[in-house]
């Protein structure tokens, strides 16, 4: 065994250039693996955080039938007495807030806007005193101020403002149907523009005071949802069960239920990126396989000699597989080191994808800079897979060479 290992490692130095080139191919593959995986995991982690902080909260209490009809944004499927539920939740130690969400037609008139027009919007009416206990809009204001309680005011997302060329002080009109089906028109002044790390929010947000919406929509104090914040370390499912006991009669959904579409998209992206990484690995595998095939071809007579002298095929195979594992190890160590260096940069500075996310929804809830994360699992996977992959792909060429009869091996030119 000692001899086999020594022979394998001595052979690594035999064709230094080839060993380096093949190791380099593996290293590049693994570096890309670490880099892309880190970026994806970072984007997913950041997206989840931004979903919870700006879109869904951690838990949401809804009327039992609301979720099935959510696309209609029904105002009648509401929580009738949200304040008592909020009080119960607060006494149980939860941070929670009420909201009314509804759809409307937004009218832009030429008095303020360069162009007249209308578009469908999604409006969130928030409790201006409590909303920041659950959501994180506090630090996101880039212009103006937040809407005041009871005022006919609205805050909009920064990209939305750019798209419609809105400025603080402009007025918009919202035409919607109130609770019961009556038509209502609200003239609201844009008092603030927010820019947060969630591109969806920047692109679509229209946020008005809860009591203003309550008045216009005839909600009689009802809310369409109650959103709850949890700490990151909380057990989501058990907290959901706990809240469900407090708010009996209503449904409690976790952010994972609410962001099902995003999670499915993230899963699909992982699959797609996995395919790309798989291809990178295949390229590295072909490189190793080719190197081993060349090594076999060049050492056919040597193989014949070793077999003549009674060395077992399994020992010869093992020597070549260890040799390939050595190439894989060099590649894996270099690739992991390069990957960690690249990742250090990615974790510290990240890549600014603002130029894409501004105009295109890429699915992730990251507005500009995507940063990586450190994952021990990825680094270990990289090291182990580099070595294992090399050893596995060396098997076939070795098997092929060992199928040749010994006299042919000995007379191989």
């Amino acid at each position, binding site marked *: 065994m000692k*001899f086999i290992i020594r022979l394998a490692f001595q052979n690594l130095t035999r064709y230094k250039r080839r060993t380096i080139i093949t190791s380099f191919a593996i290293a590049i593959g693994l570096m890309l693996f670490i880099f892309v995986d880190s970026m994806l995991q970072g984007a997913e982690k950041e997206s989840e955080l931004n979903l919870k902080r700006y879109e869904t909260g951690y838990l949401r209490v809804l009327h039992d039938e609301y979720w099935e009809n959510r696309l209609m944004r029904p105002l009648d499927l509401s929580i009738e007495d949200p304040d008592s539920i909020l009080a119960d939740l607060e006494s149980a130690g939860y941070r929670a807030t009420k909201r009314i969400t509804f759809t409307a037609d937004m009218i832009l008139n030429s008095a303020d806007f360069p162009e007249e027009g209308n578009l469908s919007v999604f409006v969130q009416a928030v409790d201006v005193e409590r909303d920041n206990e659950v959501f994180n809009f506090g630090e996101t204001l880039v212009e103006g101020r937040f809407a005041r309680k009871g005022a006919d005011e609205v805050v909009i997302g920064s990209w939305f403002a750019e798209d419609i060329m809105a400025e603080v002080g402009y007025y918009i009109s919202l035409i919607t149907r109130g609770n019961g089906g009556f038509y209502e028109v609200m003239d609201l002044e844009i008092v603030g523009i927010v820019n947060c790390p969630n591109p969806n929010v920047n692109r679509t947000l229209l946020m008005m005071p809860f009591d203003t919406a309550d008045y216009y929509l005839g909600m009689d104090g009802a809310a369409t949802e109650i959103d709850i914040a949890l700490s990151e370390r909380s057990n989501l499912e058990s907290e959901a069960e706990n809240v469900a006991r407090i708010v009996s009669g209503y449904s409690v959904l976790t952010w994972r239920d609410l962001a099902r579409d995003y999670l499915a998209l993230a899963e699909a992206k992982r699959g797609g990126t996995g395919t790309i990484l798989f291809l990178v690995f295949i390229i590295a595998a072909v490189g190793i396989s080719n190197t081993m095939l060349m090594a076999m071809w060049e050492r056919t007579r040597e193989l014949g000699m070793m077999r003549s002298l009674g060395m077992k095929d399994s020992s010869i195979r093992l020597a070549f597989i260890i040799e390939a594992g050595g190439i894989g190890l060099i590649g894996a160590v270099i690739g992991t080191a390069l990957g960690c260096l690249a990742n250090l940069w990615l974790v510290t500075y990240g890549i600014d994808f603002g130029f894409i996310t501004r105009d295109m929804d890429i699915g992730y809830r990251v507005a500009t800079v995507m940063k990586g994360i450190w994952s021990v699992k990825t680094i270990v996977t990289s090291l182990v897979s580099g070595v294992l992959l090399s050893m596995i792909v060396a098997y076939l060429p070795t098997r092929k060479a060992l199928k040749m009869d010994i006299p042919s091996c000995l007379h191989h030119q």
Partner: protein
Amino acid sequence: MIKIEGVRRNYKTGETEVKALRGIDLEVTDGEFLSIAGPSGSGKTTLLNLIGCIDSLDDGEITIDGVPVSRMDRHAKTTYRRENLGFIFQTYNLIPVLTAFENVSFVLSILGVGQEELSERTYRILKEVGLEGMEHRRPDKLSGGQQQRIAIARALVKQPKIVLADEPTANLDSKTGEEILQLMKQMNRTYNTTFIFSTHDKMVMEYASRLVLLHDGEIASDTRRE
């Protein structure tokens, strides 16, 4: 004793069947220094390969010390070669990344010989073949003759019953070739190892104590001399 009875070996080259050996009968007693000679294509190497259990015959039988080696399966032949046979090749076939010592000692490694004994036997045989002081040189730092000495040491270090050498001097100049033959002869006498080597070089034939001349796969003559 090696007993070869009615051995035939055919090869297919494309559509053509080549009859490499056409019924060889031969007996080789222990400790012989036998040369198989003949022109190219006469079947010398094929016969050596069959005796060396690295090829399979089509008809006939080969027994070594009563063991029907030609009937063995692949694994049994490997084991038999490992334990009983030594090989010397025309092109030395040394492992270039290993030193002279390692090239010789690996034969003992695969036999499972312990480190101390392996070391002692390897140094001793390298000394006997005249490579003392060169144990840690790699083949590329040695001459052709010195490389073939390593090959001889490698063949003999396990003290095999039989050493088979396929044209062992073909790649050497005549002076070095003669030195190698003298060394082989000396080893033959020292260890009473049976040496069977193929050649078409007259000078080499002169060294043999028995000369078997092959022609078109048949024994044309079998001459013993002292």
